[in-house]
């Protein structure tokens, strides 16, 4: 395979491929795709290492520690798979390189701060929504869950509502 970093899959075929991956998970495991759940479990594991007594007393955190390690879960294994799949795909496409992706007008520190802040928002939001773009919009959306479609509408609504203000970071 020739490595061309600017070459991507046809978006329609990529969509069908992603749908088939999701379908495989649903049929074989009875589970879809998820990302924020694994992040939460990693976070609780870290918090447990720092302040075990606090985690054991926190009603919003201890739920995932009751059955052994929070990391012993299918979501965490799927996340490991995403990491591996991402490395292999990036290496074979020539896109594996250490860098900061940013627009021409923003400093590296500014871009990192925005990335971190956005991550924080998504982490908090995903706890309330019981999932993120993978768990709610993709999986729940495909299974016609009403909550997932509400999530999807609000996700795009929230995004477009502030897109005007962040466009300077990219142009």
């Amino acid at each position: 395979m020739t490595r061309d970093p600017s070459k991507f899959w046809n978006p329609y075929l990529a969509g069908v491929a992603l749908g088939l991956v999701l379908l495989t998970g649903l049929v074989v495991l009875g589970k879809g795709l998820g990302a924020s759940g694994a992040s939460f479990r990693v976070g609780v594991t870290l918090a447990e290492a720092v302040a075990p007594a606090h985690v054991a007393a926190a009603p919003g955190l201890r739920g995932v520690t009751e059955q052994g390690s929070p990391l012993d879960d299918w979501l965490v294994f799927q996340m490991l798979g995403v990491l591996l799949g991402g490395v292999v795909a990036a290496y074979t496409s020539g896109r594996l390189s250490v860098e900061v992706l940013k627009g021409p007008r923003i400093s590296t520190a500014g871009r990192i701060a925005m990335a971190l802040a956005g991550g924080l928002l998504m982490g908090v939001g995903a706890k309330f929504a019981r999932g993120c773009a993978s768990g709610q919009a993709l999986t729940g959306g495909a299974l016609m869950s009403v909550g997932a479609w509400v999530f999807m509408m609000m996700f795009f609504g929230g995004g477009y509502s502030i897109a005007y203000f962040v466009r300077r970071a990219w142009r």
Partner: protein
Amino acid sequence: MSPLPFWSLMAEHREAGLVVSLLVGFAFGFVLERAGFGRAQKLVGQFLLTEWTVLKVMFGAVATAMVGTVVLDGVGLIDLRAVADSASSATWLWPMLVGGLVVGLGFVTSSYCPGTSVVAMASGKLDGAATVAGVVVGSVIGGELLGVPAVARFADGSFLGHLYLYDLLRVPPAVVALAVALVAVAAFVGAEKVERIMGGKAPPSPARPRRAVFATLAGLGAAGVVMLALPHGTTAAPRAPARITAEALAGRVLDAPWNVRVLDLRSAAACAEARVPGAECAPPEALKDLYLADVSGARDLVVVAAGDLAELPAEIHAYPGHVLALEGGFEAWKAYALTAPEPPAPGAAPQALAAWRVRAGLHSALTGVKAPPPAAPAAGGVAKPRKKVSGGGCSG
């Protein structure tokens, strides 16, 4: 029930299930990277209107998986509602509205979502790694917030259970799936128009795969419209109802009564005398007054006859949701819940002891007769069934 027993991959063959999870994750990550979702510019372009890859890939994936599950359900390979109950979360309306908004704000700020940030990190993008760290810390902060009683009340409020679009719209799932496929094609056409207007920087998609995907989705959409025109109910051939054991029914009635509706089909007098907790007395002549064809199918319907039920009444057949018949009818319930269970022999297996405790607790709660303690010294009283969902406000 699904002939592919995915439950066993989550329970008995857990190691195999985790390996499959890893493989599914690998494919997920690989496809996301190849679609360009490891690059912030490609993702945020959706919101700057310059590039509509996010919509094309996401909508395409949702439509593909949706049509796929509906077709597999149609040929009997999976049970759509069982898969959906297992793989999607229930609906909490307001928390999901607010959560979706906050995740959307975070997406545009970071230009990644929690899944794609992992792919970006995997391809060496440091901004992706920063987003991953943000999501990890943010979800712990979210978890901490849920410890505040007022916040927890909000997060657990407006609970609607497992609610699906086909319950809400009262059409067969296939019709929803095919309508979504049609809307997807319309959205793709619209997206390409906007891309051309916004400068045409995005390379046009090669025509052949594009046409194939469009034609397939549009064809499926047309098939859905035809199905909608067909009279409903012709496909539902009478068949033996799915069964539920008295033990499983007791578990559901006690653990999550808001997920189940129990109808007692015996005579009103027999039902008035004794029935499953929470059951409605619905003698056959009163069934038509329940308008089962027109109510939401979100809850599973369990019918209780005097004995085993060979065939469901037509009114029950019209119920849009899942219907189960109590195995052995009320006689089985009587034997399970209204008869004092034999205490397990000393040294019985812990599972047997636990099952006995639940049964003895149920028996004494329903009859007022206290069960004698088991012969073996056992600490504690009757094991209480654990409540899985707090709040919700619609417990029966």
